[in-house]
């Protein structure tokens, strides 16, 4: 089985800064592996995540994600790859005017061929899996922070992604609900064999990982 993520010699410099943010990064993630990416702020974690997530164009090096080489990939190829990745952000970023179920179904609406009823059924089942079976018709404004982030987890997983990228998903949550959300995410990912790359500062969730990768000053240090 091919590695879902394989990076070789990735360097990145922002337009205005002369100092590179990423220097010669090599990283591989195995199928089903849950990897935590830690390091001080400014160490390049987030930039690395946006490159892997095809949200940013590559500069130097090779980055193969789910079989797609991102070096030299065009916008269309990047958009196509993003559809196969589940994203979880610091903020839930749910659409306030859609119910929890409709928000989750937005991940499935990208493929307009599927029947609406099937989309809503899958969204409902996914919400049940994150423990929100009774909140499917609630608007995000009616949910607690932890519940909203669980909706975001459901949205990331409902499309059966080949990879989940998460950026400090616990940052906006209190201790208990933060831990709950991350455990839920990792449990569901393990059941489905989906690899996760999770950026975090949060020392309380280090034990969920198969492997911890530390970054410093644009390099992987361990």
């Amino acid at each position, binding site marked *: 089985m091919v590695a879902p993520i394989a990076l070789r010699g990735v360097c990145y410099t922002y337009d205005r800064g002369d100092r590179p943010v990423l220097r010669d990064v090599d990283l591989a993630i195995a199928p089903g592996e849950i990897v935590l990416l830690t390091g001080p702020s400014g160490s390049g974690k987030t930039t690395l995540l946006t490159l892997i*997530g095809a949200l940013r164009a590559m500069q130097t090096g090779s980055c193969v994600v789910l079989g797609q080489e991102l070096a030299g990939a065009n916008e269309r190829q990047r958009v196509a790859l*993003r*559809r196969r990745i589940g994203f979880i952000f610091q903020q839930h*970023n*749910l659409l306030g005017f*859609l119910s929890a179920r409709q928000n989750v179904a*937005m991940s499935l609406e990208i493929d307009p061929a599927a029947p609406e009823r099937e989309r809503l059924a899958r969204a409902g089942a996914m919400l049940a899996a994150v423990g929100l079976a009774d909140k499917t018709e609630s608007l995000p404004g009616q949910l607690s922070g932890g519940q909203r982030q669980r909706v975001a987890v459901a949205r990331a997983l409902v499309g059966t992604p080949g990879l989940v990228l998460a950026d400090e998903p616990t940052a906006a949550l209190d201790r208990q609900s933060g831990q709950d959300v991350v455990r839920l995410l990792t449990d569901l990912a393990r059941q489905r064999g989906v690899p996760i790359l999770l950026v975090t500062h949060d020392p309380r969730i280090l034990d969920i990982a198969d492997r911890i990768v530390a970054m410093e000053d644009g390099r992987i240090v361990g």
Partner: protein
Amino acid sequence: MIALLAGRLAWRQLTSSRARLVSAIAGVMFACVLVFMQLGFRAALFDSASNLPRALQGELFLINPLTLVMFRPEPLARSRASQTLALPEVAQAVPIYLAQAKFRNPDTGRQRTIQLIGFDPEAGAVDFAGLAPLVPALKRIDTIGFDRRSRPEFGSVVGRLERDGPFEVEVGGRAMTVVGLVSLGTSFGADGNAVMTETNFRRIVKERQPSKTDLVAIRLRPGADAQAVKASLATILPPDVVVLTGAELIAWERSYWEKGTPIGFIFGFGSLMGLVVGMVIVYQILFSDIATHLREYATLKAIGYSNTYLRLVVMAAALLLAVLGFVPGFFGSTVLYDVVAKATLLPLGMATDRAVAVFGMIFAMCAAAGLLAMRKLGEANPADMF
């Protein structure tokens, strides 16, 4: 299918905030009513300008080619009317005299200009509603028929006539008896009209030579081909007259007001202002919707929605607003037309072709606002989400 889903998302977003939706619809509706009123006034004024030519019965007409507009006619030789009778297809050629004179308001004594129309009422070349029963009375000396749709500034002529019967008024400095009412309507050139025989016309307009008339209505024998007769008349008549069909006469009159005056431009400009205001309102609504949902839009891009899809959402919202605003705007304008028509006596009303045109303009206005607002989508950068 993608467009439908984008449209549904736009609909859900629009309807999520009632207050914003109502203000957006009100903005579109405002633009819609403004454009309808401007175009309605324009059409009404142009229509009313051709009130007189439309009331004339005749297949062909003669006018002096120097005549720009009916209320200021250049005279033509009356003998041209007789000359047309040389053609066997011509049944009748009726001279019509036009002039403006002062009419003294019988209530206030103030003077106001009225349009005089003099013709042989028995010739059947003019058909004003209410004329036929007046013919015997009009043939008496110093009598006129008054246009009941004249502006109210001429005084309570209609009321007096209905109450007391015929009474005297001063027209062009001469005492004339109002013997009855016809229905014609006001126009740019005339606030009111009075009809009379040729003889009575010359009693008011004394400087007029009998040999000069202003307009000749030609009636053809049944079965005659107007275009063919027009062509033959053009060959036998000297170039000091032009032969026009009824439609051409109306177009001649309209074209003066459309091209020779700033009226067309003024109402066109008014419509444009309405559209600009409407576009700014719709743009503001769409723009603030995008600005407040920038993070959510960026998230949609991150999870694999293309820029095209988000543009579709914005465009769908714009076009939904066009439809939602046009419908109440259309009905509101229909009611307003009625109110204004009663107040101004102008022939103002809803017309299908205008409704279609205004819908097109409102649609284009909203689409333009949508295109402008879309530029804001570029700021929704998914790479900033982490």
